[in-house]
């Protein structure tokens, strides 16, 4: 079964075409890497998949269901989670509160105007378990603003994983991390179960290629090369894009 299928996705901002006839098929459990120079349209493609942008043409299917016109929030309920290139969390709140908000997002309890949120034992337990999985349970009561950049990146991934997604979109998860922090995130990503399909945008080839099974290369809004790691690395078009003609 295909986890994610994009067919003929076009998106323009005014006169600028940012994606052109993008076709992409990601199998269930696959680890897919999307690479390309700055401005290739990778993050726009993520925004289209996540529903933050609507394509001008084409269709998007998630596990066989057409989600092209579905609002972003509904896609989360269908099992799609994402992280952002620039960390987008709640800095004034504690790590525990951040993860609890992620868990609450898919729960009916999010509409409850009575019950105390910070006394919800079930959510508390789950959130603590999530933080324990990424090794940050000892910082659970610390405001996010008082943690390092690498810790925040791990919290962001933990929030996405807390929702037990079927498809996880990671937008440059290694960007701005120190060597040690990269290893931490690498370990975290390596532990993601195969029930979760992962699509990742990344510029750091050393870590990204280790992670990916298949790679798609984007250039000027098009997927120009698509294949296994070896095929893509050896492809002359990849070399041309990265090293010049």
């Amino acid at each position, binding site marked *: 079964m295909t986890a994610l299928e994009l067919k003929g996705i076009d998106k323009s901002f005014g006169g600028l075409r940012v994606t052109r006839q993008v076709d992409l098929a990601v199998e269930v459990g696959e680890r897919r890497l999307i690479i390309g120079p700055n401005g290739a349209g990778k993050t726009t493609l993520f925004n289209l998949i*996540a529903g*933050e942008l609507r394509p001008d043409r084409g269709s998007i299917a998630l596990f066989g269901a057409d989600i092209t016109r579905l*609002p*972003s*929030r509904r896609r*989360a*309920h269908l099992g799609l*989670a*994402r992280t*952002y290139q620039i960390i*987008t*969390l*709640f800095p*004034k709140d504690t790590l525990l*509160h951040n993860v*609890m*908000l*992620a868990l*609450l*997002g*898919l729960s009916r*309890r*999010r*509409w*409850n*105007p*009575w*019950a*105390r*949120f*910070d006394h*919800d034992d079930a959510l508390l337990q789950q959130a603590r378990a999530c933080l324990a999985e990424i090794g940050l349970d000892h910082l659970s009561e610390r405001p996010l603003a008082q943690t390092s950049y690498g810790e925040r990146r791990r919290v962001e991934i933990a*929030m996405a994983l807390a*929702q037990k997604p079927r498809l996880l979109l990671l937008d440059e998860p290694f960007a701005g991390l120190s060597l040690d922090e990269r290893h931490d995130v690498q370990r975290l990503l390596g532990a993601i179960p195969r029930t979760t399909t992962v699509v990742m945008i990344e510029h750091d080839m050393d870590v990204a290629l280790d992670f990916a099974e298949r790679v798609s290369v984007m250039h000027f809004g098009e997927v120009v090369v698509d294949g296994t790691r070896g095929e893509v690395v050896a492809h002359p078009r990849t070399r041309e894009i990265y090293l010049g003609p």
Partner: protein
Amino acid sequence: MKRVALLLALVGLVTVPVWVGGSYYVNIVSQILIDAIFALSLNVIVGYAGLISLGQAGLFGIAAYGAAILLVAGAGHFVAILGALVATIAASAVFAVLALRTTGIGFIMITLALGQILWGLAYRWISLTNGDNGITAAARPAPFGLSLASAPAFYYATLLVFLATLAAMTVFARSALGAALKGTRDQPRRMTALGYDVWMIRFLACLFSGFWSGVAGILFFYYNQFISPHAIALSASAEVLLMVISGGAGTLMGPVAGAALVVAMKSIASAYIERWNFALGAIFVLIVLFMPEGLVPGSVRLIRRGWSALQRGERPLEERR
């Protein structure tokens, strides 16, 4: 410590008619409580949702006018109050549907326009609202046979409603929906990605806020036994916004402190200071300069800083011993 402070505050409030002396001052405290309810209602969308409204006095006015018009039409107090609240919630829904099409400056401008439309209706629809002359109520209600005609009796009724408002706000702010609302204030994009319906959460917040603005409007009408367009003018919306921001948006006690400050300046300081508006403006400037987060959170910050400085100062002495 917190519980003791709350208990003392409650005892202080309950005994107001005993220690403030005279109906005039009891009435001023009633005014503070009514404005505090109004400010607490606005705090839901300003403090928790991060949406600045300049039309809240319009909703306040719909409730006040709604009750007044129904009473004039011959309805009883219960029907008038109920009808006014239903009308306010309906108007809040219309306000929200129109204003939530946008956020930021757009939200401010739409709420400002809607507030001005209501003010214009109150001012010009003379056959319904009696225009600039306003509508007068013959008497205050007497729930369970208890007359609210006297200043202390009306004060206690207002205090009960104020405590109910405070309890409702506390429960809401700590609830899952309250946490979600604050999330939409801080990171709406992330909240959407997490599966939250940001629009619906904000819409519900507008209804909740509108309801309590309506409650304040009804109390205001019964307190004065009169309502005129002046009470729902832009200046009223701006004033309640100042109460929220100066006291501390997004806190429970901030809007209450803001209401106390504004009413005290208007009703008490104005008797001694000719240019009390200037003094109030100067106080706001000082708050913005030294406590940009508002009077209550700013005071808490300064007290904590002073306390920790005191402790730091004591430590060397202990070490010396």
